[in-house]
């Protein structure tokens, strides 16, 4: 059987009445020493901040494992792995998490979905971290990205974490993936 999929539609401008959760931005509840904030701004093709976007993140735990039955190495319970944060009027979002471990054959990364009015489907990107430059050289996903655009996927270190901006269009446009 192959049923046709239901099409995607925009979240519209009023997504924030239905999607955010109080604890959404806290991928990890603990305040351990390895907790980091990933903060950034979502901006449009005019360089203006997008105040009605939602950023979602999905990642492995510190050891590169997922709490999921399709992880063939065995599910490791206890780490939600998922973050969700609507943008503020200035386009900013913030997710509190831990750095994921490396996955087999892949550098540590976080998958990101961005939803907003004007996006008929989510756009998908990835966050990589600058301290793993050696592993980036052999990462198969980064290898598929034109060299001159890879820096849009690398978070910038800040006090207490990282900065990762999402530019939907135009100069410095973030690399987005077809999943």
């Amino acid at each position, binding site marked *: 059987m*192959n*049923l*046709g*999929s*239901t*099409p*995607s*539609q*925009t*979240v519209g*401008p*009023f997504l924030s*009445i*239905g*999607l955010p*959760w109080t604890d959404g931005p806290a991928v990890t509840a603990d305040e351990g020493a390895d907790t980091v904030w990933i903060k950034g701004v979502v901006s449009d*093709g*005019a360089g203006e901040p*997008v105040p*009605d976007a939602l950023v979602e993140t*999905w*990642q492995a735990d510190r050891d590169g494992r*997922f709490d*999921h039955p*399709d*992880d*063939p190495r065995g599910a490791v319970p206890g780490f939600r*792995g*998922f973050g969700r944060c609507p943008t503020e009027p200035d386009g900013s979002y913030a997710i509190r998490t831990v750095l994921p*471990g*490396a*996955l*087999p*054959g*892949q550098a540590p*990364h976080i*998958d990101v979905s961005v*939803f*907003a*009015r*004007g*996006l*008929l489907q*989510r*756009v998908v990107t990835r966050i990589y971290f600058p301290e793993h430059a050696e*592993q980036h050289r052999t*990462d*198969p*996903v980064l*290898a*598929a*990205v034109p060299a001159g655009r890879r820096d849009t996927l690398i978070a910038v270190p800040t006090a207490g974490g990282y900065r990762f901006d999402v530019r*939907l*269009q*135009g100069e410095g*446009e973030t*690399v987005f*993936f*077809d*999943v």
Partner: protein
Amino acid sequence: MSRVSRQALRLPAYRRDPEGTHPPLDSPAYRSTALRHPKRPLVLLPQRLTEVTGPLLGPGRIGPQDNDLTRQHEDEPVGQRILVHGRLLDGDGGPVRNSLVEIWQANAAGRYRHIGDRWPAPLDPNFDGVGRTLTDDEGRYEFLTVKPGAYPWGNHDNAWRPAHIHFSVFGSAFTQRLVTQMYFPDDPLFDQDPIFNSVPDPKARERMISRFDLSRTVESWALAFEFDIVLRGREASVFEDEEDE
């Protein structure tokens, strides 16, 4: 080179939907896409561990009245009561079980409880327009709510959105994540709505329209609409991920 040893991982793979199923990011009739669609081509993302897994969001997300939007306040909201039900399925027809379904919608007058909604239709003090539930073992969900009204918006002259309910579902993999809108049968506003019509395939568009369901209509109480949501299915066979970089 990664310090994690290479290993062959047997992973499921999810079918990519046929061209025309989903709307293009650049959809000029819907003006808000103009500055928000990426202009560079999307890069094909292979389905590896991160993409074939996804968040498992369970009962901790749900409060007791979350699937009855008519009982979240002291009094009942104004409007036509409707039961909205259906199944969350994958493309192979299998149920997606114990999975979070979130909805949000305008009230019966077509207004959202949101500071940005300035259209001067009345707000209803007894209606928030927000619901959550989990699918059961058969993938079924249901909500009791009121039928949302149509509302005007600024996209083009005399533009009105057809009545709709926003749905957000996760499936079991990152690749299955979907936000969509449920529409109502025979809406006179379909023809002029660029969001509904952004989906190129007419058959796919019809999959966003709920079905009036007399069999679930509750006598002297509520009309019923059925809306199944289908997420992409798995490939027929799993593949061996050889990490072939």
